[in-house]
C-alpha cells in the first residue's frame, strides 16, 4: 500500500503528526475540539540525539480514528503517514463494565500495537462526576485507573492518565487538562525522538550502502526527503533544509566522482540528452511532477536539480532568508553547467537558449528580493560563466548599468532585449556595440589590456556590420597597433585601413567629404622633436630643420602621401618666445611624454614665485599644477583618445593653417624620423596630419607646446674699440684713449640686405675727432657662422665734411668688418669762466662731444653720425674716449714767495712719456715771471702715477688779481717714437683770493661788524632727476637754503643768518649773499660754518632723507619766517630748534633736505682769518658741486 497514492493530500503544508484514537469514539469526539485547540498552546523542549541542540517546539497533531491499516508495515519508510502516538479513550468507571468489555478491547488494541512494534501509546481515562453519581456502587478504594494501570502498564504507570471532568470549567478539570496535555506532548516528543532516530539510523545505513551496485540515488533521495518532510511538518525548516543540502552535496559529489572516472550505474539516467527543460516553479511548495519523475528514476539532471532547488527555495523563504535564494541560484547555475559537461550530457543550442531564458526568469524572480549591488555582482559572475558557452551558441551578452538591469528584471522579454543580444541571429549589432563600448570604457579606465583588446575586436566586428566606417577604421587602427594581438590579426586590421584608404572617392559615391580622420596617436607615438640648429632660432637664409621622431605601431610599413604639421603664427616678440620654450632641452629636442594613463594623471607641478612690483622682494611662493584642467575634469565627460567614437569629434582639422610638409614618407614599424624645413616667422606647432589616401591620421594637439623662430634681420652697424691695439699700444686697453690715434672696429651685420657695389658709409666729420688715413685698409667678410669668406681692400675718401667708406660687395647675413683709425682731441682744459677760482672745472660743450667725469677718468663721448646705404636715416654711433691725464694745480706760498705746482696724474693703464712741460701766462702780465724749477724735461709717467712740476711765481709791485696760465706738455706712449708725441694742454686761472678787510681798513677787529660775503656757485648742471626745478622768469632755478652758524662762539651773526636763494640751473652760476658778522675774539679764527640745504617747496612730495643725523627737519617753522628773524643767533640754535619739534610732518609745509656727502664743497673750510682787536672784513666762499 502506497500511502501517498492513497492520500495524495498528505503533501501539503497542513501536514501534522498523526495520532490515532481508539476506544470510546463518542467520548473522543466530545473532547476533540478542546484537545486540538490546547495542544499547540505551549512549547515543549525537544531534546535531540547526537548532541544536536534542543529546540522549543509547538506540537500539533492530527487525531484520526485508530485503524489497523494505519499502522506501518515492515519496510515502509513513509514517515508522514506514520502514527506517532496511539491513544485509547475510555470513560468507564464501572469495574464490572471494565472487566466485561473494555479490558478485552484494550487488550486487542495492545496486541495490534505490539504486532507492529509500536510502543507509543496512552490510555486516557475520563472521569466524570455525573457518571459516579449515577453509579454509587463504585468502589472508592481501587479506582478504574489503578485497575488499568495494573493490567496494562506494568512498569510504565505514566501510560495511563485520568482526565477529570474535561467538559467542566472547574479548577480541578483545568489541572487535569494541563497535566494531560503535558503528558501528551512529552509522549509525542518521545515518540518523535524514537521513531525519527530509528528512521535516521535506517537512512544512514542506506547511505552507507551507496557503493553497492544496486543502490539508487533516487530511492535514497525519497527516504531522506521523507525526513525533511517531517521536519517541515514540525516547522523545523532549518532541519529540513539541512536534509536537502545533504542531498545536494551528495549528488554533487557523485557527479564530481563521475567526472573523475568513478561512475555509478544510477547516474545513467541523468546522462540522457536534454531535450527540454521546463524551468523552475517556485510557486508550488512541492513540484509533484518532478518528484514523481525522481521517484520513478526517470528524472533528468536538470529535473533533479530544479526540484532540489525549488525545495530549498521554499524552505529558505519559510526561513525568511530570500537573499540566499540568489546565492544558491548562482551556484545552481554553475553546478548545472559544470555537471552537464561532466556527465557529457549533450543538448542542442536552442534548448540551451530556452533554458537560459528560463534561468533568467528564475533570477528575475529572485532579484526582486534583493538590493542592486548584489545583483550587479551576481550578474557580473553570470556574464562570465555563461560567456564561453554563449560564444559557442551564438548568444551574446553585454552588461550595462543598473537602470537597464532593473528594467530587465521586470520581465523575461525585457531581459532578453537588454542582455541577450546576438550579433548574428538577433541581428542587432547596434546595441551590442553600445554595450561593448560601455564595458570598454571600464576596461580602459582600469587598464585591463587583454579584455580591452578582446572587447575592441568585438566592437570592430559590430562596427563593420553596421558600416560605421569611421569608427571601424579608428578601432582597426587601435587594433593594428595592439601588441596583444597576433601579427596576423594586426596585419588584417592594418590592411583594412589601407584598403579603405586606397579606395577612390568615386567608388563610394560623390561624397565630398570622403576623407576619414583618425587619431594618429593610435597608430604612431610621437616621441621627439628635434630642432637643427638646436636653438630653434635662425635667420631667414639659414635652414631650420625640424626632425620629427615617430614610432610607428603599425605591423607593416605604411607609405604616407604626405605628412604635414600645421603651425600657428605667434605674434610675439622674438625675445619672449625664449621663455615659452621651457620644454625644449638645450640640445634642441623636445621629448613628448608617452601617452600612458599613468603619466597622464601625474601632477605637473611648477614653482611659482611672485615678487612685489615695488621693491622686488618675494611676496609669495607656491606650487602650481599645470595640468589641473586635465585632472580636475569630470570623469564621465572625459574624452579619451582610446575610445574611438569620442575622439573623432576632436579630430577637427585646422583649415587654412600654415603647414610644414613632407611628402612620400614611409613609416616603417618602429622608429622613424621625418624632416621638415621651417618657413620664416615665429610659429607654434599645433597639429600633425598624415595623409594616406582617403584616410588622414591626425594628432590634434601637440603637448608640450613647441615653438620655433625663423627671423628676418635688419642690417646692423656697430663700432667698437679694438680691444688689442696693434699699432702703438702695448698695454691692452679696453678704452679708447683721447689724444692718441685709436683703432675702432666697424662691424656690419648685413642681415637681409646685400651690400652692392658702390655702397658706402658716410661718416660726418667732426673737428674733435678726425678720421685718420692709413695706407692699408682691408675689410673682412665673414659668413654667419664666422667663417672668413673674403678679404677686400677698402677705399676711404675724405672731404671737408664727410668721410666716405666704400664697402665691398657682401651677401646677406654676412658680417663685414674693418678697422679705422680715429683721433680724439683732448679738449684743452677750460679757463674761460670768470668765476672759477683755483679749481679745475670742465666746461660742458653742447656739441657732439661731451665730457664727463667718471671715477677719476675724464670721458669724452664722441657721437659719429653714419649714413648707411640701407637706411635713409643716419645712424648715430657713440664712442667713448678716455682722457689719460688728470691735472691739478695748486698755489703754494712760502712767506711772500708763491709757487705754482702742477700735478699730472696718469689715470690710464698705459705708461706715457712726457716732455716739454711748460707753463705760460696768457695775459703776458709785464711784471710777472714764471721760473721753472723742474730739472728734467723728459719724464715717464707710469700708469696711475703722478708727475709734479713746480714753477715759482715772481712779480714786482702789486700782486696780480688773476692769472691765466697754461700748462702744456707733449706726451706719447712710453715706447712710441718721438713723432708720436701729442700735445697736452691745461689751462687754469689763478685769482688772488684773500682776506679782504673792509674799505680802508687793514684787518678785522673784534667787536666791529665785518662784511661776510657768501658766494654760492653751482659747479655742475644737475641731472634731471636730482633736484626740483622751479621756473621763474623763464629761468630754471632751484632753491637753496643757506644758514650761517658759528658753533664755536667766535662769531656773532648779525641780521638774518639764513635765507633762501634761487640758483639758476646752469653750471658756474653764482649767487652772492652779503651779511654782517662780528668777531668776538681776536686771533686766527676759523670762518663761520655755512650750511646748505635743498629747499623743497611744500608741494613737493616728501623725501625721506637717508641720514636723519645729517638732516634736521624743520617743519614747524616756516623758513620764510625764519629768514625774517633778525637776531643774533648763538650756537646750536638751529639744532635745538630742530630737535624740539622734529618729526612732526604737518601737511604741505616746505621742507629742507640735506645734500649728499660730497655734493657741497666748502671753499673756506679750514681757512682762518686774522682778527685784530678791531673790526674786520670777511670774504667767504662756498662752492656747490
Amino acid at each position, binding site marked *: 500500500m502506497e500511502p501517498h497514492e492513497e492520500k495524495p493530500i498528505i503533501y501539503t503544508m497542513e501536514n501534522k503528526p498523526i495520532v490515532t484514537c481508539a476506544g470510546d469514539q463518542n467520548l473522543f469526539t466530545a473532547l476533540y475540539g478542546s484537545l486540538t485547540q490546547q495542544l499547540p498552546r505551549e512549547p515543549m523542549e525537544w531534546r535531540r540525539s547526537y548532541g544536536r541542540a534542543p529546540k522549543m517546539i509547538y506540537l500539533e497533531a492530527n487525531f484520526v480514528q485508530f485503524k489497523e491499516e494505519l499502522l506501518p508495515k515492515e519496510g515502509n519508510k513513509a514517515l508522514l503517514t506514520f502514527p506517532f502516538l496511539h491513544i485509547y479513550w475510555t470513560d468507564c468507571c464501572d469495574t464490572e463494565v471494565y472487566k466485561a468489555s473494555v479490558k478485552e478491547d484494550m487488550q486487542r488494541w495492545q496486541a495490534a500495537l505490539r504486532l507492529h512494534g509500536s510502543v507509543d501509546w496512552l490510555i486516557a481515562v475520563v472521569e466524570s462526576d455525573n457518571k459516579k453519581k449515577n453509579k454509587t456502587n463504585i468502589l472508592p478504594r481501587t479506582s478504574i485507573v489503578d485497575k488499568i494501570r495494573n493490567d496494562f502498564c506494568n512498569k510504565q504507570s505514566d501510560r495511563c492518565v485520568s482526565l477529570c471532568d474535561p467538559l467542566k470549567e472547574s479548577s480541578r478539570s483545568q489541572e487535569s487538562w494541563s497535566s494531560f496535555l503535558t503528558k501528551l506532548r512529552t509522549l509525542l516528543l518521545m515518540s518523535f525522538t524514537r521513531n525519527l532516530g530509528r528512521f535516521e539510523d535506517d537512512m544512514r545505513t542506506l547511505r552507507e550502502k551507496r557503493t553497492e551496485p544496486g543502490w539508487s540515488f533516487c530511492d535514497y533521495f525519497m527516504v531522506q526527503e521523507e525526513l525533511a518532510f517531517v521536519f517541515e511538518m514540525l516547522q523545523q525548516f532549518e532541519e529540513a533544509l539541512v536534509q536537502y543540502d545533504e542531498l545536494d552535496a551528495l549528488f554533487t559529489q557523485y557527479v*564530481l566522482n563521475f*567526472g*573523475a572516472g568513478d561512475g555509478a550505474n544510477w547516474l545513467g539516467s541523468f546522462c540522457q540528452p536534454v531535450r527540454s527543460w521546463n524551468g523552475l516553479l517556485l510557486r508550488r511548495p512541492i513540484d509533484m511532477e518532478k518528484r514523481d519523475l525522481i521517484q520513478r528514476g526517470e528524472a533528468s539532471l536538470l529535473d533533479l536539480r530544479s526540484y532540489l532547488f525549488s525545495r530549498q527555495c521554499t524552505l529558505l523563504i519559510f526561513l525568511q532568508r530570500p537573499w540566499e535564494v540568489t546565492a544558491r541560484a*548562482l*551556484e545552481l547555475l*554553475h553546478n548545472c*553547467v*559544470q555537471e552537464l*559537461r561532466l556527465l557529457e550530457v549533450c543538448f542542442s543550442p536552442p534548448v540551451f537558449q530556452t533554458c537560459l531564458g528560463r534561468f533568467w526568469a528564475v533570477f528575475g524572480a529572485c532579484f526582486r528580493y534583493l538590493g542592486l*549591488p*548584489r545583483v*550587479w*555582482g551576481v550578474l*557580473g*559572475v553570470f*556574464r*562570465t*560563466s555563461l*560567456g*564561453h*558557452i554563449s560564444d559557442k551558441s551564438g548568444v551574446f551578452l553585454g552588461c550595462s548599468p543598473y537602470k537597464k538591469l532593473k528594467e530587465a528584471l521586470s520581465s523575461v522579454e525585457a531581459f532578453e532585449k537588454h542582455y541577450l543580444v546576438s550579433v548574428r541571429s538577433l541581428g542587432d549589432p547596434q546595441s551590442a556595440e553600445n554595450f561593448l563600448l560601455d564595458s570598454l570604457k571600464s*576596461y580602459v*579606465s*582600469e*587598464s*585591463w*589590456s*587583454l*579584455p580591452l*583588446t*578582446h572587447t575592441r575586436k568585438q566592437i570592430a566586428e559590430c562596427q563593420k556590420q553596421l558600416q560605421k566606417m569611421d569608427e571601424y577604421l579608428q578601432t582597426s587602427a587601435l587594433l593594428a597597433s595592439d601588441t596583444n594581438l597576433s601579427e596576423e590579426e594586426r596585419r588584417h586590421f592594418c590592411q583594412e585601413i589601407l584598403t579603405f584608404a586606397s579606395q577612390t572617392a568615386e567608388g563610394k559615391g560623390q561624397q565630398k567629404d570622403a576623407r576619414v580622420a583618425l587619431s594618429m596617436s593610435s597608430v604612431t607615438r610621437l616621441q621627439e622633436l628635434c630642432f637643427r640648429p638646436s636653438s630653434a632660432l635662425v635667420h631667414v637664409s639659414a635652414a631650420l630643420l625640424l626632425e620629427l621622431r615617430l614610432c610607428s605601431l603599425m605591423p607593416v610599413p605604411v607609405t604616407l602621401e604626405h605628412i604635414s604639421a600645421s603651425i600657428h603664427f605667434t605674434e610675439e616678440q622674438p625675445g619672449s618666445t625664449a621663455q615659452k620654450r621651457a620644454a625644449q632641452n638645450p640640445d634642441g629636442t623636445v621629448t613628448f611624454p608617452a601617452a600612458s594613463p*599613468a603619466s597622464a594623471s601625474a601632477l605637473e607641478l611648477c614653482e611659482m614665485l611672485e615678487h612685489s612690483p615695488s621693491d622686488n622682494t618675494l611676496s609669495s611662493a607656491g606650487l602650481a599644477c599645470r595640468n589641473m584642467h586635465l585632472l580636475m575634469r569630470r570623469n564621465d565627460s572625459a574624452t579619451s583618445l582610446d575610445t574611438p567614437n569620442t575622439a573623432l569629434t576632436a579630430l577637427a582639422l585646422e583649415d587654412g593653417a600654415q603647414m610644414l610638409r613632407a611628402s612620400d614618407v614611409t613609416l616603417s614599424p618602429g622608429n622613424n624620423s621625418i624632416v621638415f624645413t621651417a618657413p620664416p616667422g615665429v610659429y607654434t606647432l599645433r597639429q600633425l596630419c598624415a595623409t594616406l589616401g582617403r584616410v588622414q591620421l591626425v594628432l590634434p594637439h601637440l603637448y608640450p607646446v613647441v615653438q620655433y623662430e625663423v627671423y628676418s634681420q635688419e642690417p646692423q652697424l656697430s663700432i667698437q674699440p679694438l680691444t688689442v691695439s696693434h699699432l702703438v699700444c702695448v698695454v691692452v686697453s679696453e678704452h679708447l684713449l683721447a689724444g692718441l690715434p685709436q683703432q675702432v672696429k666697424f662691424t656690419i651685420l648685413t642681415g637681409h640686405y646685400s651690400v652692392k657695389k658702390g655702397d658706402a658709409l658716410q661718416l660726418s666729420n667732426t673737428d674733435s675727432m678726425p678720421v685718420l688715413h692709413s695706407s692699408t685698409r682691408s675689410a673682412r667678410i665673414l659668413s654667419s657662422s664666422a667663417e672668413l669668406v673674403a678679404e677686400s681692400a677698402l677705399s676711404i675718401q675724405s672731404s671737408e665734411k664727410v668721410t666716405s667708406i666704400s664697402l665691398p660687395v657682401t651677401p646677406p647675413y654676412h658680417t663685414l668688418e674693418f678697422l679705422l683709425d680715429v683721433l680724439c682731441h683732448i679738449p684743452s682744459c677750460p679757463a674761460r669762466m670768470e668765476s672759477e677760482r683755483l679749481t679745475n672745472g670742465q666746461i660742458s660743450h653742447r656739441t657732439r662731444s661731451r665730457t664727463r667725469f667718471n671715477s677719476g677718468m675724464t670721458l669724452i663721448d664722441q657721437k659719429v653720425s653714419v649714413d648707411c646705404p640701407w637706411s635713409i636715416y643716419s645712424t648715430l654711433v657713440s664712442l667713448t674716449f678716455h682722457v689719460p691725464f688728470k691735472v691739478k694745480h695748486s698755489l703754494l706760498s712760502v712767506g711772500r714767495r708763491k709757487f705754482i705746482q702742477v700735478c699730472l696724474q696718469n689715470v690710464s693703464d698705459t705708461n706715457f712719456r712726457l716732455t716739454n712741460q711748460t707753463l705760460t701766462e696768457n695775459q703776458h702780465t709785464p711784471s710777472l715771471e714764471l721760473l721753472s724749477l723742474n730739472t728734467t724735461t723728459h719724464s715717464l709717467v707710469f700708469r696711475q702715477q703722478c708727475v709734479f712740476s713746480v714753477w715759482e711765481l715772481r712779480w714786482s709791485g702789486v700782486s696780480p688779481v688773476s692769472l691765466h696760465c697754461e700748462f702744456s706738455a707733449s706726451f706719447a706712449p712710453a715706447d712710441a717714437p718721438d713723432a708720436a708725441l701729442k700735445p697736452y694742454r691745461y689751462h687754469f686761472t689763478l685769482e688772488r683770493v684773500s682776506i679782504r678787510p673792509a674799505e680802508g681798513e687793514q684787518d678785522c677787529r673784534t667787536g666791529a661788524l665785518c662784511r661776510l660775503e657768501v658766494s654760492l656757485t653751482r659747479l655742475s648742471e644737475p641731472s634731471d632727476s636730482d633736484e626740483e626745478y622751479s621756473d621763474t622768469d623763464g629761468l630754471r632755478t632751484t632753491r637753496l637754503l643757506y644758514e650761517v652758524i658759528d658753533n664755536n662762539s667766535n662769531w656773532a651773526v648779525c641780521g638774518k643768518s639764513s635765507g633762501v636763494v634761487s640758483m639758476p640751473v646752469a653750471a658756474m652760476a653764482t649767487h652772492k649773499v652779503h651779511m654782517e658778522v662780528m668777531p668776538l675774539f681776536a686771533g686766527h679764527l676759523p670762518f663761520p660754518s655755512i650750511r646748505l640745504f635743498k629747499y623743497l617747496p611744500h608741494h613737493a612730495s616728501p623725501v625721506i632723507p637717508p641720514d636723519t643725523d645729517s638732516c634736521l627737519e624743520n617743519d614747524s617753522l616756516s623758513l620764510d619766517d625764519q629768514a625774517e628773524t633778525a637776531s643774533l643767533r648763538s650756537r646750536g640754535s638751529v639744532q635745538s630748534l630742530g630737535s624740539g619739534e622734529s618729526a612732526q610732518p604737518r601737511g604741505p609745509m616746505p621742507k629742507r633736505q640735506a645734500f649728499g656727502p660730497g655734493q657741497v664743497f666748502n671753499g673756506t673750510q679750514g681757512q682762518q682769518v686774522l682778527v685784530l682787536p678791531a673790526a674786520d672784513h670777511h670774504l667767504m666762499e662756498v662752492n656747490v658741486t
Partner: protein
Amino acid sequence: MQTAIMIVANYPLYIRSVPTQGELKFHYTVHTSLDVVEEKISGVGKALADQRELYLGLLYPTEDYKVYGYMTNSKVKFVIVVDSSNTSLRDNEIRSMFRKLHNSFTDVMCNPFYNPGDPIQSKAFDSIVSTMMVQAF
C-alpha cells in the same frame, strides 16, 4: 591544469597565469571577481566581521574555476583562480598562499625604486609566484 594569480588594485598590477594561452579568460574572470570582492567587503562592513581577516574566501565558482580572493588593508586585491577539478587545494592552503603572496608583495612595495601603481616587474616576486604555482598546481 590552469591557474592564475593576479594582484589588482582596481587596475591590474600583476597577472600571471599558467598556461598563457587562456589569459584573456583569466582577465575576464578576475575583472568580474572584483565585483564580488566589492560586494563582500561592503557586506563585511555591515556585519562588523573581523576586520583583520584579509582572506575573503571562495569568491565564486564558475564552471571551470574556483576564484579565491584576498584583500590587503590598503585595498589591494589578490585573486587566485584555480581549476575547479583541482581538489588537492584546501581552503587552508589557499589561505597560506595568499599570505605568502602578501608578504612578497609587501617586499615589492618596500622597494624604493618601485613606483606604487606601476605594474610589478620584480624578479623576486616573479620567482616566488612561480614556485608557488609549481608547488600548488
